[in-house]
C-alpha cells in the first residue's frame, strides 16, 4: 500500500467517522474496530500490519483532525507489553479492552528496598498450582486505588543472581490481599501509593514472559515507557523556542518590582538559556532520530529538566523574597515558589535519581566503564540488604 493510498483511506474514514462530540469510549471502539488503534500490529491483533513509516501516516492524519486513539502500538505500553509477552488467551481477553481504554492500569515495580536498584525486588511470588501467591510491598504506584491490573515484578527464585530470579505478571488489583495506602509527598500532595500485597493471587496465565526471565520483560516495558515520555517531552516544546520567553519568571519579576535588579536579570537570562537549550536539545534529538541516526541528546532530557526545575525554583524563591516564607491560597506567590522547589525533587529523584541518570549517560552514551558490581554474581538470598 502506498502512503498516498493510505492517507486517502484514513482521511476518508475520518471524514466519515470523526466527530469531536462523539463519546470517547464509542470513538475508541470504532478506531479499534477499523484497525487504526495500533496500525503497525498484525490484523490478528487489531492492527493493519503497516510499516513504522506508514504508521506515522495514520498518526498524522489523526493529528490533522485532532482525533485521538491511534499510535497505541507506540504509546500504549501496557497493551504492547502484553502483546509481546502474553499468552494467546490473555491477549485475546485483554488487548481489545486495553486499546479501548476499558481497563485501567498501574505499575508495581518499585519497592522500599528496590529504588534505584530495581532488580533488588523482594516481593515474592510462590507457585501454587496454576496460580502464584504474592507477598510483599510496592511503592510509588500511581492510580493504584483505581487500577484493574498492575504490571508486577516479583521474585520467584532466590538462589540465583538478582536479575535472573524475577518474573513479570499482569496482576489483578481488585482482590482481597491488596491494600493501597496513599503516600504523603513533601509537596503535601498524594499522587502515589504504597501497595501491600498479602497472599494475593495471580493466575499463571497472567504471567508475561518465562518464569525467572522477568528482568528482560521489564527492560522492554521500560523502553516503551521511556519512548512515551520522550514523545511527551518533545510534544511540550514550541518550535520557535522563543514562545517560551514570555515566561512566568519574567512576569513574576515585573509583579514583584524586581525586573530592573541587575542580579535578578542575570538569573532570568540564565534560566531562559537553560529552558530554551533544553527545547533545542529535544528538537535536535527528534531530528536526529527522524534522520535515522541515534541521538545521544535524547537521554540528557531528564537531567536537563531536573537542573532547569531546581534552578528556576531557586530564582522564583529569590523573587518571592519574604513571601516564600508562607504557603497557602492567601500567599500564591510564596506558595508557588515553595511548591516548585519541593516538586523539583519529583524529577531529580523519581524515575531514577539524577545520580543514576549520570551513571546511565556516562556508561551508555559516553561508553565509560561500569563500576565493579559486588552483587552481580551472588545468589539473591546472599545479597546484602539495607
Amino acid at each position, binding site marked *: 500500500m502506498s502512503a498516498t493510498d493510505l492517507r486517502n483511506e484514513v482521511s476518508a474514514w475520518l471524514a466519515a467517522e470523526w466527530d469531536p462530540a462523539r463519546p470517547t469510549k464509542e470513538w475508541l471502539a470504532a478506531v479499534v474496530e477499523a484497525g487504526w488503534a495500533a496500525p503497525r500490529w498484525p490484523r490478528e491483533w487489531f492492527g493493519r500490519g503497516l510499516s513504522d513509516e506508514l504508521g506515522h501516516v495514520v498518526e498524522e492524519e489523526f493529528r490533522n483532525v485532532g482525533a485521538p486513539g491511534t499510535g497505541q502500538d507506540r504509546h500504549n505500553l501496557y497493551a504492547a507489553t502484553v502483546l509481546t509477552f502474553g499468552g494467546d488467551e490473555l491477549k485475546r481477553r485483554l488487548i481489545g479492552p486495553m486499546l479501548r481504554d476499558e481497563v485501567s492500569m498501574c505499575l508495581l515495580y*518499585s519497592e*522500599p*528496598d528496590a*529504588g*534505584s*536498584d530495581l532488580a*533488588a525486588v523482594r516481593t515474592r511470588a510462590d507457585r501454587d498450582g496454576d496460580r502464584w501467591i504474592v507477598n510483599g510491598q510496592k*511503592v*510509588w504506584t500511581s492510580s493504584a486505588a483505581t487500577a484493574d491490573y498492575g504490571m508486577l515484578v516479583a521474585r520467584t527464585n532466590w538462589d540465583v543472581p538478582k536479575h535472573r530470579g524475577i518474573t513479570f505478571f499482569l496482576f489483578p488489583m481488585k482482590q482481597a490481599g491488596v491494600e493501597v495506602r496513599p*503516600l*504523603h*509527598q*513533601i509537596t*503535601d500532595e498524594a499522587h502515589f501509593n504504597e501497595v501491600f500485597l498479602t497472599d494475593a493471587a495471580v493466575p499463571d496465565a497472567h504471567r508475561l514472559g518465562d518464569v525467572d526471565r522477568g528482568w528482560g520483560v521489564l527492560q522492554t516495558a521500560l523502553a516503551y515507557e521511556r519512548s512515551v515520555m520522550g514523545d511527551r517531552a518533545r510534544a511540550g516544546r514550541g518550535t520557535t523556542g522563543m514562545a517560551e520567553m514570555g515566561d512566568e519568571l519574567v512576569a513574576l519579576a515585573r509583579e514583584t518590582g524586581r525586573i530592573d535588579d541587575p*542580579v535578578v536579570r542575570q538569573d532570568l537570562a540564565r534560566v531562559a538559556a537553560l529552558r530554551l537549550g533544553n527545547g533545542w536539545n529535544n528538537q535536535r534529538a527528534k531530528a536526529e532520530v527522524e534522520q535515522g541516526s541515534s541521538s545521544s541528546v535524547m537521554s540528557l532530557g531528564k537531567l536537563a529538566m531536573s537542573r532547569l526545575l531546581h534552578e528556576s525554583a531557586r530564582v522564583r*524563591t*529569590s523573587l518571592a*523574597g*519574604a513571601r*516564600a*516564607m*508562607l*504557603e*497557602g491560597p*492567601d*500567599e500564591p506567590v*510564596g506558595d508557588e515558589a*515553595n511548591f516548585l*522547589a*519541593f516538586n523539583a*525533587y*519529583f524529577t*531529580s*529523584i*523519581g524515575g531514577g*535519581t*539524577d*545520580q543514576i541518570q*549520570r*551513571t546511565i549517560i556516562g556508561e551508555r552514551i559516553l561508553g565509560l566503564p561500569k*563500576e565493579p*558490581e*559486588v*552483587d552481580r554474581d*551472588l545468589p539473591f538470598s546472599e*545479597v*546484602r*540488604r*539495607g
Partner: protein
Amino acid sequence: MPAFAVTPEQQDLRASVRRFLADRSPEAEVRRLSDTEQGFDPDVWKRMAGQLGLQGLGIPEEFGGAGAGHVELGIVLEEMGRALLCAPFLSTVGLAANLLLTSGDRAAQARYLPGIAEGGTVATVAVSAAGLPGAGVVARRTDDGWRLTGTEPYVLDGHVADLVLVPARTTAGVALFAVEREASGLGRTLLTTADRTRRQARLTFTDTPGAPLDGGLPAVERMLDLAAIALASEQAGGAARALEMSVGYAKTRVQFGRAIGSFQAVKHLCADLLLESESATSAARYAASAADEDAPDLPALASLVRFSCSDSFVKVAADTIQIHGGIGFTWEHPAHLYLRRARTSALLLGDPAFHRERYLRRTGV
C-alpha cells in the same frame, strides 16, 4: 577568650540542652506541635526556663537571668536548630530580650525581662524581613498617651506574644513601643508558614496604645545584628543535623549490594556538605564570640553570617532530600522539615542577596 575555645561549662550546657531536647522535642513532638494552632508546648516552654534557664541565659542577673554571653546563646540555638524545636525562642530571646537590652531602657528591662527569664512571657518584635524597621507602623502622641497604627506583615510568633515591641515612625524618627497582649486595636492573623515549626503572624495596629521605650533605631539595628547571629547559630545546628541524617542514611541504605555511601556520588556530596556545615558552624561561633567582645565590625559580621549560614543550610538541607531519594520525597521523613526550616530562615530578617549587599556596605565597600 579566643574565638573558638570551649569551656567545660559550655560543654555541659550543650550536653544538657541536647538531652532536654531529645526528651522534650523528639520528631514526633515536633510534628504534633506543627499541627497545633499555638505551635508550641507551654509546659516545655516553662521547663526550658525553670529547669535550664534558657530564656534568661543572656539576661543580666539583676533581671532574673544568668548573665551569660552570645556564645552560650549560640550553643543553645545550635541545639534548638538541630532539634527543630517548636518554641517562640528566637522571637522572645533573639529579638525581644535583645531589644530590651540594646534599648538601654532600665525601666522596661526591669518590667519585662524577669517575666521572659522565668518563662512567663512570650515576646516578639514587630520587624519584618529586610527594609527599614518601623516602615509599617506610625506612632502619634495623643492626650491619652501614644497610639500606634499600621501593619507588620511577618511577625515571628506574633499570634501568641504576650509582649510585642514595635519600632514605629514618629515625627522625631523611629521610636520603640511596648504593646501588651490585651491592647485595644491589636489584630493578629496567624499565617500559613512553609516551615510549620515556626509561626508568623500579621499584626495590625489600629490606634493601639503603646508604652514608649528608650532606644530608637540604633537599638533596633543592634538587636537585628544580634538576632542575625542567633539565627545563624540555629541554622548551623540545623545543617549539622541534616548532614548527620544524610550520612547515617548513606551508611545503612543498601543498593546494588553496597551501602550508598560507598558510591562516590553520595560520598563526595556528603564531603561537600560537611564543608558547608562546618563552615556555617565556624562562622556562627566566630560571630557569637565577636558579639561578646563587642567587636567594631559586628554589623558586617552579622550580615556575613546571615547570608553564608543561610546558603549553607539551604544547600545541606536540599541535598539531604536528594541523598535520601524516594523516602526523602515523603512527608513522613523529616528531611523536608529541615529544608522548610532552611528555606524560610534564609528569608527571615532580610534575604541572602540583601545581606551580601549590606555586608559590603558595612565594610565600607
